[in-house]
């Protein structure tokens, strides 16, 4: 039995479907295609799969996927809550299961039709959830409104500007322009487009928001020992963490003593404590970007800079290729696809295999993070 998760498991297969505003396949079919692609990439037969992990918001459950792909007896399955906060924890749960002998071949996945599916704020018959009693009646309706509130305060407190948020949107878009699979491939963004675009929730404009996407992704996790016999260079799961801070209130973290210090800080403390390296040793990062302000907040939380320095960190091309910390090298949720952050996991694996469309030379370490602003998770990958 492993006493630690450190490098005990590895990601050996990744798979994805096309990403588009509208795909003809059902979520279930997309899920199966992504899972089978990941297993084929690993060179592992579906009948060997004995563990599954996904999000609580995943509507294709493990029973359906296992049955459809022809999995064997399944001995471990888990679902992670809080939407995009769950992405990296799916890998973390499987790593724990495999490292402790509860299973041997784990599959994590996310399938989503958000591009062509319903949007809650367009539904007039929407049921108001009870925590919404403190926000919804006042017209704080959408995640963009909830994060916009924190973003405005952050800008006020630390002198962050829309130019800083543009730096984030631009870095992601530039990488997507290099990635043929990205929804924003060959669709450049300019500062003028950004500054004159319509507001969604002022201070956040259209380009501060992630894409609405149909698509699915999956990855395969096995023990480090088995990984050495797989088709590709193993990408080791070096450290994993979840984070639910004391007195946290989800996306409306307004009642926390310190609303601008989100779940990233909690996850980061655990993540680094169990790692052999620190933020300064990270070659490339995939940072959850449902909204641009999450990047400066996460850069601070994960220790790439000090409190209040996240916006300034984005200056001088720091997030671009060749910069201090290239991020979201597939284009991220802002410009590749918004599939609750699962594309960030697969992109991290591509970087450490050396096959990214925006490859960071000799990348050996990659941080991948899940949704900031909600109970979150993160993984450190190394080659």
């Amino acid at each position, binding site marked *: 039995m492993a006493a630690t998760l450190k490098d005990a498991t590895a990601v050996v297969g990744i798979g994805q479907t096309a990403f588009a505003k509208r795909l003809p396949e059902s979520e279930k079919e997309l899920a199966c295609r992504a899972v089978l692609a990941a297993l084929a990439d690993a060179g592992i037969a579906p009948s060997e799969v004995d563990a599954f992990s996904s999000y609580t918001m995943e509507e294709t459950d493990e029973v359906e996927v296992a049955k459809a792909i022809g999995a064997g007896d399944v001995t471990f399955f888990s679902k992670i809550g809080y939407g995009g906060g769950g992405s990296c924890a799916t890998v973390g749960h499987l790593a724990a299961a495999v490292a402790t002998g509860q299973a041997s071949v784990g599959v994590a996945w996310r399938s989503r039709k958000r591009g062509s599916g319903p*949007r809650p*704020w*367009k539904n*007039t018959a*929407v049921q*108001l*959830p*009870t*925590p*919404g*009693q*403190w*926000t*919804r*009646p*006042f*017209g*704080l*309706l*959408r995640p*963009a*409104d909830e994060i*916009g*509130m*924190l973003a*405005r*305060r952050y800008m*006020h407190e630390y002198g962050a500007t829309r130019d800083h948020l543009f730096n984030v949107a631009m870095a992601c878009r530039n990488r997507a322009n290099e990635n043929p699979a990205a929804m924003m491939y060959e669709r450049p963004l300019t500062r003028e487009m950004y500054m004159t675009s*319509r*507001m*969604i*929730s*002022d*201070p*956040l404009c259209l380009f501060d928001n992630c894409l609405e996407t149909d698509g699915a992704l999956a990855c395969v996790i096995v023990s480090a020992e088995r990984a050495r016999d797989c088709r590709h260079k193993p990408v080791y799961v070096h450290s994993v963490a979840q984070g639910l801070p004391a*007195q946290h*209130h989800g996306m*409306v973290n*307004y*009642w926390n*003593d310190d*609303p601008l210090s989100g779940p990233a800080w909690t996850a980061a403390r655990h993540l680094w404590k169990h790692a052999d390296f620190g933020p300064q040793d990270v070659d490339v990062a995939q940072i959850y970007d449902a909204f641009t302000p999450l990047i400066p907040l996460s850069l601070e939380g994960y220790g790439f800079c000090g409190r209040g320095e996240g916006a300034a960190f984005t200056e001088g091309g720091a997030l671009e290729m060749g910069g201090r910390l290239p991020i979201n090298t597939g284009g991220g949720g802002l410009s590749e696809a918004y599939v609750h952050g699962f594309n960030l996991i697969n992109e991290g694996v591509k970087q450490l295999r050396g096959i990214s469309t925006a490859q960071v030379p000799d990348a050996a370490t990659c941080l991948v993070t899940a949704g900031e602003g909600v109970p979150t998770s993160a993984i450190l990958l190394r080659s």
Partner: protein
Amino acid sequence: MTTTSAAVDDLLLPVPDEDGAPFWEYAARGELRVQACASCGRLRFPPRPCCPHCQSFDSEWRPMSGRGRIWSYVRPHPPLLPAYAAQAPYNVILVELADAPHIRLAGNLVTSADAPLNSVDPARLRIGARVQVVFTRTGGVSVPRWVLEKP
């Protein structure tokens, strides 16, 4: 920016839970009250069954002065639910209570209790501005709204 009264009446109403119900009952009487621990005295928001500091289940509802400052704000633009889209862009503010700075209530800055959500000139929205609570009767419920202390 014209707002029909029908659209305003379609704004979402609070759906109180057991812990939150007293807040809305006091609001209906024109009182802004916050839950406090009856044992250690600490205020907490949102309301919940027990005190995170001393684990006591005894609580009371303490009256607030109704004064505060704007901690932050957003201005939502469509796509939004129809009743909100009809008034967009409007403001949503977060008010830090003068009596309890770590309790921040979401609300709207308006020119008077019954004015629309977009009644205040956006140029007047400012972090740190002093505000005072008022109550708006809508759909049989009273919701707190906020006016500038120096209009």
